[in-house]
């Protein structure tokens, strides 16, 4: 298969030799995994893709798979852009990822148990006490509490990238309320609708089994004495940007989607208000942040929580998923200790790489950071969604000075990492009407239960649609791709 130049839909595809290109190797040859797909896509003209692209967009819009963007004057409904070129991960590569993310989730679970019980890892000086005691996400209400089944992070979303060295690196572990899994399913559906033929040539694992596995996980952590648990999903409401996902998960699991106002607590049991009166609730998959769960215990003005929920939880009458207080471990500063955390609890070597990290809280490392900002990414420790990130080589001299000042003012709040080059993947660009390389990452979804675990074979490949942009979050103009994990026999 010779170079892309023969293919009109790839006419403006310029491979950057400094980056890892997911489909072309260093000789501009199509990689083995993508050969068939590339040939199949070559049969379509640029116009075809334009049409398919428009159709796919309309389909997302009509299905109401949208999120809301709050502008200055009005609320706009936007779709999370979907790209027609799927990401393919072969079985060998996937095995490595799957083992790696499961290992991390288990290690994080053990870490959470420890920091809410004996704190051995701290007492032994492996993770600094400061990281825990200065964390706003540590819930002292959880101190000494045994969550049902011993599970904290039932659901973890791990963000991975492929660096220019062709290796996967973990960028972040999200174990509060990781979102995005509904898009994995939507993307698959959308690609099937648009280009069903290509699926005949590849054997990819299904992604629709996520919900059934999630339900099983929820059932493994049911309260004592409950036979068949009544599980629900709780959402902040229809105006939440992830509402589509909440409703999708409830529907796919066949459980009720509730809001705080639908639940009440009586004698430390949780009930939902149904048309036939109160009905007891046993397991709550909550998509509400810790601080909003219970106005009697946390933010007193939370209107989306349930007063008395924490007491019911602590009495063991209801299970919350993920466990309150997991946020302490998805702090970006904890991330940097992941290799040590894995070794400490699992006595194993980490399977997936961590990006080397400089802690601005350590004076010598702070010095290095301040002197090398142009080569580093500076990240706030506790912001989600790609906010507050500065990429050193994109900053002007003045901006570098500004960043220096903010970082020196509160060094504990920042970490720095070398600028990782996210791999690129062909992505349909509306303006040029052809495929161009764009940066991608991968979010995987791992489930931990007391007697089973599950990694979704697939994931959310997020793509930065702006040329050269490294931030793939949807709030920053990112899109996503269907992601295929291939079965072994290919």
């Amino acid at each position, binding site marked *: 298969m010779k170079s892309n130049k023969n293919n009109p839909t790839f006419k403006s595809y310029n491979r950057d030799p400094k980056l890892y290109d997911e489909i072309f190797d260093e000789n501009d040859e199509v990689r083995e995994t993508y050969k068939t797909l590339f040939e199949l896509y070559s049969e379509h003209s640029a116009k075809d893709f334009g049409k398919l692209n428009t159709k796919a967009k309309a389909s997302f*819009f*009509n*299905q*109401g798979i949208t999120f809301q963007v709050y502008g200055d004057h009005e609320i706009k409904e936007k779709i999370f852009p979907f790209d027609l070129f799927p990401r393919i991960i072969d079985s060998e590569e996937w095995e490595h990822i799957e083992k790696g993310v499961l290992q991390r989730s288990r290690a994080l679970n053990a870490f959470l148990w420890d920091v809410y019980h004996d704190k051995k890892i701290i007492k032994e000086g492996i993770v600094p006490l400061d990281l825990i005691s200065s964390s706003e996400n540590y819930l002292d209400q959880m101190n000494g509490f045994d969550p049902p089944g011993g599970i904290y992070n039932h659901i973890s979303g791990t963000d991975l990238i492929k660096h220019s060295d062709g290796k996967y690196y973990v960028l972040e572990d999200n174990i509060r309320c990781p979102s995005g899994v509904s898009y994995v399913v939507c993307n698959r559906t959308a690609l099937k609708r648009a280009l069903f033929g290509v699926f005949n040539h590849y054997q990819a694992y299904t992604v629709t089994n996520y919900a059934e596995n999630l339900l099983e996980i929820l059932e493994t952590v049911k309260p004592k004495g409950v036979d068949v648990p009544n599980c629900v999903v709780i959402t902040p*409401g*229809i105006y939440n940007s992830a*509402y*589509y996902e909440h*409703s*999708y998960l*409830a*529907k796919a699991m066949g459980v*009720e*989607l*509730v*809001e705080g*106002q*639908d639940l009440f607590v009586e004698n430390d049991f949780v009930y*939902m*208000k*149904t*048309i*036939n009166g109160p009905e007891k609730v046993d397991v709550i998959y909550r998509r509400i942040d810790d601080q909003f769960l219970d106005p009697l215990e946390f933010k007193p003005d939370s209107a989306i929580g349930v007063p008395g929920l924490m007491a019911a939880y602590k009495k063991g009458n209801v299970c919350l998923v993920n466990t309150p207080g997991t946020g302490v471990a998805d702090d970006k500063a904890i991330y940097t200790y992941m290799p040590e955390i894995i070794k400490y609890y699992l006595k194993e070597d980490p399977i997936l790489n961590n990006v080397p990290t400089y802690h601005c809280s350590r004076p010598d490392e702070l010095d290095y950071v301040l002197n090398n900002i142009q080569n580093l990414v500076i990240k706030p420790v506790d912001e989600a969604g790609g906010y507050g990130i500065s990429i050193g080589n994109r900053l002007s001299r003045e901006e570098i000075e500004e960043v220096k000042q903010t970082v020196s003012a509160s060094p504990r709040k920042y970490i720095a990492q070398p600028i990782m080059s996210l791999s690129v993947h062909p992505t349909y660009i509306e303006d040029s009407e052809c495929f161009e390389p764009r940066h991608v990452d991968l979010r995987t979804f791992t489930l931990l239960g007391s007697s089973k675990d599950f990694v979704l074979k697939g994931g959310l490949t997020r793509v930065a649609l702006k040329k050269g942009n490294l931030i793939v979050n949807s709030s920053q103009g990112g899109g996503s791709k269907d992601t295929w994990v291939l079965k072994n026999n290919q």
Partner: protein
Amino acid sequence: MLARVANNLFWMGRYIERAEHVARYLNVNYFTSLDAPNELSQSRQFVLQSMLFMADDFTRNENELNEEEVLFDIALNPDKQFSIINYVKLARENANSARDLISTELYEAINKFYHFVLNYPVENFKKNGLYDFSVQVTENTSILRGKIRGTLLHDQVYSIIMLGVNIERATQVIRIINSKYKDAEIAQGSYGDTLKNSYEWTTLLKCAESYDMMRRFYRQTPTSITTLEFLILNTDCPRSVMNSLNEVWEHINDLSREKHHSKHSSAFLIGKVRAKYRFKVIEEIESDLQAFIENILDDLNGIGVKLEKEYFHY
């Protein structure tokens, strides 16, 4: 099912139905008036007044109504509570919060409908879009009706939506009768029209999409008696008040778990109201239509309140 969600489904049904009736009312009144047989029925002001009355806007007291403004307010003005665009928005919002319970097909249809109304070019509408807009609205609602019947399991979810639909339908048909009866009263006498044979009866039947059915049933020109009888009492006419009450009765029985309805239940009240109208005769109704209208609107309202207390309280 959650009480809050049940309430949302109930109102989703009501708003869909309401949008349809208002849209058809605009369409039928406007276009039949263009070639109406008498001058008053042709008069713009007369028609616009009638529309505002039906839409529930009593805020205006100008003598001269502005056509563009009135039509825009009722159809597409997002700031007017009684506008079609507002009903569709509310229907979709209600659907959103019950999204996990309704079919993907129904949700998608509601969502498409919403985007259609939301993106309808206002300028076009004001110039010459009334026909297109109102027809599209009524067609969309009939698609929704099909999706409700054909893509939902006929369980509690379905029953609650249908309760909303039918209570609203009965209410809207009564309101249309009220509105057109007033028109007929005002129009009587001009060009020798008597109340009994008013041209407005035809319009009324068309507003309820029942003209063809009525002609098939009576094989004669509509009169006040036959029109009222058909729209109120005929159990075979799917738009009649009695038919709606029968439907309400059927669906409350799917919902209620009691075999013998306790006297404070919604089912009991619905049964009672249904029985009250089941054996009414049209002459009795016609002799004091105004009292009848007030009475039945009260009854329908009472059913809504009772349902809310029993099932939707959260």
